[in-house]
């Protein structure tokens, strides 16, 4: 382990380890051990289940918890109504699941659980995870688009008002930008989460390293780094929310293309 050598390895936090001796689990030759990543996905799902279940009292005059849950569903509902229109209502379960999973996974991964000896893990800092979400969103866009518009869906690549002499170029650019969507969705979330965690880890290594080399360096380097960490923790909480929002927003924009074309 890198930490044993007196250094903090900022990448170590992303290591995936099989848990509970499930290394040998496999389906059709693919090894599917229950890893720490899967554990935190499960925790995310569990916390989300508790959160939404707490808002299921269905009271006419809602309590605080019910207000919070209804606030999130209403937020997703408004997002879809604003971007897609009345047809967006049917995507609420998917966008809600997407947004809440990303949000809860991001926030749970930021919790200072190391204080009680648990190493938090952020599934959304792995592009294998964000890639699944992005491909699901992209697949839904393709399925809905072709189901609703058939081959007419390809008119998406020719925006209104394209001059005739650009007709040979614009569709290619539009096609490329369309095909890049799943990658940009997946990479944006994965990079944002990984960068934040690496930054926090690097700054914490500054704090630990400088404090170990004496009070002078500890006060010159360690204290400013620590203050910066506090600020960046707040920033990371913001990023956790913003990335979840961006993912949900872009998915709903892409769904709008599929529902309404241009």
């Amino acid at each position: 382990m890198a930490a044993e050598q007196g250094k903090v390895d900022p990448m170590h936090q992303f290591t995936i380890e099989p848990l509970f001796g499930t290394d040998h689990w496999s389906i059709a030759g693919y090894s599917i051990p229950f890893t720490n990543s899967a554990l935190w996905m499960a925790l995310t799902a569990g916390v989300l289940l508790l959160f939404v279940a707490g808002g299921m009292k269905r009271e006419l005059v809602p309590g605080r918890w019910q207000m919070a849950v209804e606030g999130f569903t209403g937020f997703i509902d408004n997002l879809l109504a604003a971007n897609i229109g009345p047809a967006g209502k049917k995507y609420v379960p998917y966008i809600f699941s997407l947004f809440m999973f990303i949000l809860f996974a991001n926030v749970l991964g930021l919790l200072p659980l190391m204080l009680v000896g648990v190493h938090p893990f952020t599934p959304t800092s792995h592009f294998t995870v964000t890639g699944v979400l992005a491909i699901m969103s992209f697949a839904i866009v393709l399925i809905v688009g072709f189901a609703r518009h058939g081959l007419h869906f390809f008119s998406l690549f020719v925006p209104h008002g394209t001059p005739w002499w650009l007709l040979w170029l614009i569709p290619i650019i539009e096609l490329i930008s369309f095909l890049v969507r799943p990658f940009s969705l997946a990479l944006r979330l994965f990079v944002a989460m990984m960068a934040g965690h690496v930054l926090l880890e690097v700054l914490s290594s500054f704090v630990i390293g400088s404090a170990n080399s004496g009070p002078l360096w500890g006060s010159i380097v360690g204290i400013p780094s620590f203050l910066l960490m506090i600020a960046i923790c707040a920033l990371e909480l913001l990023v956790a929310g913003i990335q979840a929002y961006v993912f949900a927003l872009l998915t709903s924009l892409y769904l709008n293309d599929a529902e309404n074309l241009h």
Partner: protein
Amino acid sequence: MPQISQLAATYASQIFWMLVFFGFIFFVIGRGMVPKVMATVEARDKQIADDLAAADAARAAAAAEEEAWRQAENARRAEAQALIAKAKADAAAAGEKRLAAAGSVVDSRLAEADARIAAARANALGEIETVASEAASAIVARVAGLSIDAKAAGAAVKEALHG
């Protein structure tokens, strides 16, 4: 970077568990619970809208009722005033009739009295003529020693009295 260095060893596990837990979230929470939460919100919004509509309808009904009451009140007031006017007119007419009746009674009594007075006067005149003719014949008998008959005396008196 474990994301890449562990890719070959972990991608199947990552994708599999992601699909398992996201599927759980989507089907249990997204499909199962979120619609109920939203139905609650919708039911509340609907109830609020219904209550507002009911309150609005009640206010409109109250306004209409007040308007109807005001019209009925106006009609009743006009009716009452018509009744008062009619009673006044009736009373005035009845008064006049009684006055007229009393006037005619008074007139007839006056006429009767006048007639009686006239009869009494005629009577009195007749008696005066009789008395005067007797007196005249007595005077003539005393003064001239003539005896004239009553008829002549009467004629002479009548002539003297009436010129």
